[in-house]
């Protein structure tokens, strides 16, 4: 069947220029798939009229799951009948976005058979995104996916697909096994991931060191960021080499150290590790000379989110140092405490960060049985409106 030809003068402009063009990608699929072809036409119309033409998602999904599929319908089904349904499927990516060509070819074949052929590699949360599926094709796609060893990710008010950096598979700075923790948590929370039953979404992100390559501190309800407790390992000869090769150690490294804890006399670099803030700067600047210590683990932070509903939050310290040891039951138990409390007392569409701000961090810690620690605050409160608890009730 010949595909309807959509003229796309505006989108064609976006095939010019050196950066890889998403328009070329859509056109590739449009040449053999009627859904993608109608998408191309609809998008050109959006470019012409400067507005989107998508309706709200209805509730669609695969049997027994509440998450993993985002319903999407165009507002213009008469004009673009092939994208009347154009749902998104989130496919849970492997830890660290590691693949073999065999596995990816299988996914491509499945998506060629059932959908538009368009993907996002990857969506913002980390999933492989299959863009554009009809309602009827959801279940068959799912069957083929699970047959190939893949499963859907999270969506809606559930545990969202956890994601992590490359970790110990290729990074010398990984202070814990991000890939293993991510895989373990993903498997542990399969039910919570597929069947939304929370007040709102819940994201885990695992970064191997304070460089935070998966931006966990900004966009995860639980941000697990690798760090170390002992001394930075120094290879003095290599430090000398960096200096000889033109790195201005005083200006570029030491003056940038937030702990003000380094000294360099032209020969020897000294670090007062007691006040090192584990920021990674000196290590980033001289990766051959400096390494994190060997007593490694992670800081667990809680609460970050984008603005919706009550404003954006950056995660704050919950557990100053966690030593990850499989099966990670200590952290999972703590998560269960928090999630239970939040499910019981959180309001609809209230993220955990907002919940904590509403009830107060102190009360929150009480409720989950965690002792307050100075590492949890940037500084103690500076306002005197203290809600002292009645000593007699204690």
């Amino acid at each position: 069947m010949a595909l309807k030809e959509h003229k796309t003068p505006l989108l064609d402009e976006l095939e010019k220029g050196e950066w890889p063009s998403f328009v070329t990608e859509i056109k590739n699929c449009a040449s053999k798939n009627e859904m993608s072809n109608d998408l191309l036409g609809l998008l050109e119309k959006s470019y012409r009229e400067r507005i989107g033409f998508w309706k709200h998602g209805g509730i669609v999904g695969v049997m027994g799951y509440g998450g993993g599929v985002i319903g999407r319908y165009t507002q213009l089904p008469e004009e673009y009948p092939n994208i009347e349904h154009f749902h998104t499927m989130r496919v849970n990516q492997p830890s660290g976005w590691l693949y073999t060509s065999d596995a990816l070819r299988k996914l491509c074949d499945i998506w060629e058979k059932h959908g538009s052929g368009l993907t996002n590699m990857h969506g913002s949360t980390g999933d492989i995104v299959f863009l554009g599926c009809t309602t009827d094709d959801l279940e068959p796609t799912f069957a083929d996916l699970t047959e190939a060893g893949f499963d859907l990710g999270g969506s809606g008010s559930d545990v969202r697909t956890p994601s992590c950096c490359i970790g110990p598979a290729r990074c010398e700075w990984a202070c814990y096994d991000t890939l293993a923790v991510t895989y373990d948590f993903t498997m542990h929370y399969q039910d919570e991931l597929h069947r939304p039953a929370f007040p709102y979404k819940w994201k885990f992100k695992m970064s191997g060191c304070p460089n935070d390559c998966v931006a966990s501190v900004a966009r995860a309800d639980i941000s697990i960021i690798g760090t170390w407790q002992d001394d930075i390992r120094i290879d003095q000869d290599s430090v000398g080499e960096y200096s000889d090769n033109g790195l201005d150690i005083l200006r570029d490294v030491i003056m940038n150290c937030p702990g003000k804890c380094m000294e360099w006399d032209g020969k020897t670099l000294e670090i007062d590790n007691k006040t090192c803030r584990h920021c990674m700067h000196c290590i980033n600047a001289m990766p051959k000379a400096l390494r994190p210590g060997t007593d490694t683990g992670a800081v667990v932070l809680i609460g970050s989110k984008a603005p919706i509903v009550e404003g954006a939050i950056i995660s704050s310290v919950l557990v100053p140092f966690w030593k990850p040891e499989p099966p990670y039951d200590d952290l999972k138990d703590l998560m269960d405490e928090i999630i239970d409390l939040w499910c019981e007392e959180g309001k609809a569409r209230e993220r955990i960060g907002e919940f904590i701000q509403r009830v107060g961090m102190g009360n929150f810690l009480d409720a989950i049985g965690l002792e307050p620690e100075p590492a949890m605050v940037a500084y103690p409160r500076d306002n005197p409106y203290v809600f002292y608890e009645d000593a007699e009730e204690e």
Partner: protein
Amino acid sequence: MADTQKRITDIGPPDYKDFMSPAMKANYGKWKYHEIIRPGVMVHVSETGDKLFTVRAGGSRLMSIDKIRQFCDIADKFCDGYFRFTSRHNIEFMFTDESNIDPLIKAINDLGHPVGGTGNSISSIVHTQGWVHCHSAATDASGVVKAVMDDLIDHFKNMDLPGKLRIALACCLNMCGAVHCSDIAILGIHTKAPIVDNDTLPKMCEIPTVVASCPTAAIRPSTEDGKPGVEVIEENCMFCANCYTVCPSMPLNNADTDGISLWVGGKVSNARTEPTFSKLAVPFIPNNPPRWPEVTDTIRTMVEVWAQNARKFERMGEFIDRIGWPRFFEMTGIEFQKEHIDDFKYAGLSFKRSAHLSY
């Protein structure tokens, strides 16, 4: 379902261990250091002496299955089929034979993809769906990103910037790509209150939920001709589209008043300074597809001012912190307006509360 096959559920993702190359497995957790040999090419050296080379290709997040298959072919040819994606839509090919570097780069370039994004450069822009797929988008995502990356591609291919440059785009305040801690955040915004459709609203939405969805309490229940509905107090609306997200009867997309705001100086990494939010640079730029020239020009101006004046390693926000915001506005020529001054909760924290000023 008339299906004889047993339905498989809750198996989770494949085990990552099955997707690690032999070199990764052998050196797992034993990496000692890495070097950036040239833009887009790294070598990781293990305590065992093994070396693993990585070539990073810039990718567009929206990809056809044919493109993925072409990347698979490259991986088969040079990497025994093993490759990965990064958190910023880049594609990384890893291999142990150094002589593969040049032919691999050529294969990637032949496919129309640049190599780069390492060290002090701009990496690919993380972004959301935009007009391609989202109901509340105030701008397109992929198109703006393509235009900005076309303009800044030299900074992707060369490590000629003072520090890392991380740009992100979200097509509305929902920020399904949390962009609010980026060196430069491109944020789609609506600037008109939702138009309430009280004919459909009671059927499609629960009124208390709609009322409660508004962060600024701009929505209240109303009755029109004895029929229940809601009304929006327009002065209180800050166009976040929260209400529209919970209720389709409150659309606020508008071709003339939707557009883009630009934010600067955020970061997530802990290096030197703590993670911090991006701050408002430009309150509103109308949508101007297909290439959004006002957006790309303003971003280029900010990037060049930073690139020419920042100290080594200084990220955009650290640079602005040092020179002060007045100087930033002066140097970039961006007009400072009323919208730049916060007027929401705790707004006073962002006022200048000292005499620390530069003249």
